[in-house]
């Protein structure tokens, strides 16, 4: 049994039970045990980094300390949490000066960052701990009739020097994991471009423009749905379609599913257990294509 401390973050428990349920059920079925630790906080993502970078490192380090105390590596579902925690973990491991500075702040909480643990996105756990061939064996309801547009978003891939997730310009992990479920991964223009998610609330206009391009390009490529890894990309593309419809009078009706939802369905988990009603753009036509 593979055990990880789950870093759940804020947006997933607050808004996306579909993400949490699918990830918990699919990972359990694959033999990955998730441990929920007490006293975790916000991961200190770009909104906090924008206010004070030193604080963001200290908050990320505090959460990593909790995993160190539990002697577990961390697993994240959200790409934002992954970037904040993984980048802080690597930066603090590599810079004794930064670590000393952050540990001075952490000492107020009785914690000390040791640098003894890893931070992984759950896709890395699928690749490294489960493996593609093993995953293929576990698929009981192959998604043979689905054409899926892989969307990485930004913060699993970049900054690649710290995250070391995949080639930042030519990644293949997500496409391979989609095909492992029996689906066809479809190529589309500007696949690696940002969804605009982080600009929502500050400049909705630019944010929607970026999301709109993604929806237009995936539609043009004939995708049945988009597969996401991040709750912010999900919001930008799912709820974003409602806003795009009223702002630009454009209807895409493109289902957006987290990869974990496709994974759960392919592993034979009942669609009724996955809170799929959370989706603003209905996913019924996707579910009905699964035997």
């Amino acid at each position, binding site marked *: 049994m593979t055990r990880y401390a789950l870093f759940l973050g804020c947006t997933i428990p*607050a808004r996306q039970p579909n993400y949490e349920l699918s990830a918990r059920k699919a990972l359990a079925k694959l033999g990955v045990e998730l441990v929920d630790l007490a006293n975790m906080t916000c991961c200190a993502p770009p909104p906090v980094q*924008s206010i*004070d970078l030193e*604080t963001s490192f200290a*908050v990320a380090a505090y959460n990593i300390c909790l995993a160190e105390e539990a002697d577990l590596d961390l697993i994240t579902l959200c790409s934002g949490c992954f970037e904040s925690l993984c980048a802080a973990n690597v930066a603090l491991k590599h810079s004794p000066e930064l670590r000393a500075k952050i540990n001075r702040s952490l000492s107020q909480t009785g914690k000390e960052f040791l640098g003894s643990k890893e931070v992984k996105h759950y896709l890395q756990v699928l690749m490294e701990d489960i493996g593609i061939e093993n995953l293929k064996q576990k698929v009981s309801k192959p998604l043979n009739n689905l054409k899926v547009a892989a969307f990485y978003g*930004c913060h699993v891939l970049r900054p690649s020097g710290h995250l070391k997730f995949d080639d930042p310009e030519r990644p293949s992990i997500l496409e391979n994991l989609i095909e492992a479920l029996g689906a066809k991964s479809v190529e589309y223009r500007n696949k690696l471009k940002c969804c605009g998610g*982080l600009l929502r609330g500050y400049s909705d206009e630019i944010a929607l423009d970026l999301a709109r391009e993604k929806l237009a390009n995936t539609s043009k490529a004939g995708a049945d749905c988009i597969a996401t890894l991040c709750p912010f990309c999900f919001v930008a593309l799912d709820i974003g379609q409602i806003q795009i419809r009223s702002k630009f009078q454009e209807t895409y009706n493109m289902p957006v599913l987290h990869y974990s939802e496709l994974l759960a369905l392919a592993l034979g988990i009942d669609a009724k257990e996955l809170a799929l009603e959370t989706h603003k753009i209905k996913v019924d036509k996707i579910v009905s294509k699964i035997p």
Partner: protein
Amino acid sequence: MQCLEEEKTANLTFSEELRQEMLGETITLCYQCGTCASSCPVAKITPSFNPRELIKLSLLGKKDEVISGEAIWLCCSCYNCDERCPQKVAIALAMFALRNIAFKEGYIPNIYSEFASAILYDGRIVKVSKFIEKKRPTLGLPPLQPTGVDALRKILSATGFDKLQVREEEMS
């Protein structure tokens, strides 16, 4: 010629201040090639944001123009520029460093003061409502573990974040 004049009169105090900010130290390596701007998804949409231009203005010491403007808040933090910069300037981080300075000087977009309050009071940027928390067992989700708000406040106090927040509240 205009550039030369600008260089002669540049106020270098600001680039030094930026270098001193956490992780802002690579900014002076920039030679203005524009790879960042041509890789930037936001710059493709709006002329209001151009990372190369922001770095140039910063290096020329145009502090007030940079930190009071809206441009620094239009970076979408996608890190494309960082990946492609031939000089390995940490451009996305430099944008954070500029925002950090703007925040200290009181230039704070509303949504960011909301983020600051949320983290200080709830320990989370997006609050989990009591309604959602109660609904978890009916969906088949385990109870949420408590949030480490007390520890977080101690950290925010140690780094001075809570004072930034107080200043922001005084100003509003």
